[in-house]
């Protein structure tokens, strides 16, 4: 069961510019719970990679904002989510079949409730696998 979480950085993560509410500890918790971690941000790709290296979280993909489809094509998962702080984040998530949380929703780590005893809640709401 694979769930991919794609994080915007600026305005979303605590290390962003401006800082967002989602701490790297929350991201680490998701990683340790088995989620696939990725970033999709206006940061230069090398800057995104440097960030993940600094926190020792192996991201499966780093993408510019227009490259969410590339992420979806490259990484096989049962469900895809993007977390961001701007209308464009919501827009690209919707266009590419990613579920979406606003940065302020992300601080309660809603992804942790996705893995149910029966499987995964997909962005559309239906239960896949079992």
């Amino acid at each position, binding site marked *: 069961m694979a769930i991919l979480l794609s994080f915007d950085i600026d305005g979303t993560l605590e290390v962003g*510019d*401006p800082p967002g509410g989602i701490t790297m500890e929350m991201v680490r918790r998701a990683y340790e719970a088995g989620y696939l971690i990725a970033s999709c941000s*206006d940061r*230069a*790709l*090398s*800057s995104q990679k*440097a960030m993940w290296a600094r926190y020792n979280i192996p991201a499966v993909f780093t993408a*510019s*904002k*227009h*490259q969410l489809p590339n992420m979806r094509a490259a990484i096989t998962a049962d469900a895809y989510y993007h977390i961001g702080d701007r209308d464009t984040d919501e827009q690209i998530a919707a266009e590419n079949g990613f579920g979406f949380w606003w940065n302020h929703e992300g601080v309660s780590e809603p992804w942790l409730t996705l893995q149910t005893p029966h499987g995964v809640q997909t962005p559309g709401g239906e239960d896949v696998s079992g």
Partner: protein
Amino acid sequence: MARETGWERSRDPVGIWEHRGKVALASRGHAPTDRRWDGVSMDKTLGAYTIIAANAAIEDAGIKPSDIDGIITSPGGQPGGAPIGDTWGPVRPYFAPPYNTEDGLTQVTGEWLARQMGLKNVRYFNSHGDTIWNLIGLAAQCVGDGRCNVALVTYPTGNLEGRYHRNPDTRVRGPAQWSSPWGWGLSGQGFTFEQYCRKYGSNHDRMAPFVVQEHKNGLLWPGSYYAQHEPQPFTTEDYLNGRWIAQNLSIFDCDRPVNTAAAYIVTTAERARDMRHKPVYILDHTESTFQPRSLVQDLDDTEAFCKVQAERSYAGSGLRPKDIDIFLPYDGFAVFTQYFIEAFRWRGVNKGEAHDLYAMDITPQGPNPLNTGGGNMGTGRMRTAFFSDPIEQIQGRAGARQAKKAEIAVTHGVLPGNAATIVMSSTPG
């Protein structure tokens, strides 16, 4: 603040500047460069940073505050002294004096600065300033004309929380009625550059070596936002993976807004010779303002405007393209720069050929030192690398950025339709 134009050298034939080599830049000073002002830290306001920069420039010149007899400033960094970003008020409450108006928060006038710094000997104030190129030209003319002898020139560029220049209007008046209904905005830059690429058979990817080199140069300049806060390299892969803002303008052609201030001492050549560093003589300043014939400024307009200004500058300084050792054309947006290089025919580059130059050696130590301070791409939207870097180059203290030959440096900005050019030299000419 109304825009003053009487001092400009903007009518052809301009002739050789009457103060050629008799006015000099003596020093530069910088405040720290932050991404934003947080709205709380009163020691990091634009006003506080302008004071830091002013003191640094005074110190760098080896003079005393009491030597300053003129303050020439662009309160907000934009034409007419308008703030480069959004204003603090009226939506947010002001603070206790001296922060009870925009002055000190998003603009810093000479009058505010003199009060806070206790500068008692200032006999000439000019807070009409413009972008940094026009501002240095204004200061050079004022000193040359004798309005003051030791001018403190300050250039603050502010940035507050949030994204600036958002447009929430549902009804549009004035000039916006001809653009907003069709969503026209930064598309102006994308449109002209798309025309350029189509006409000359180039493409956006060919910008990469230029922008990547600017980032490298910026990391070597201590004033840069990136040098101070994000010192990792910016790569070709990074540039090529940038998203479109308005095709052919990508996110990595846009300068990051920052909160900082710079200051310069502009004085007579005679006084400058007694100051700490060797004078950077100003050989010329020229200015131009154009209006496109109709709704948009297309490639033909852009090339025509840039050509007039480039030829005006050469006529004013008496120099030829081959005389320019270091060229510093504006880059915020990066898609402007080729128009300037081609208009100035620097290194023999003709129309449509600037991207060929980008593919050659444009490092500071190579044969084509271009934007050796990093421009805006490598430093943030502070615009002062265009002066502080060539000052350091000509004074021989540019460190790892030092060009082999740095006798004549020319900088040009800000827009293809509204520009000024400053010619700097190691000798009075």
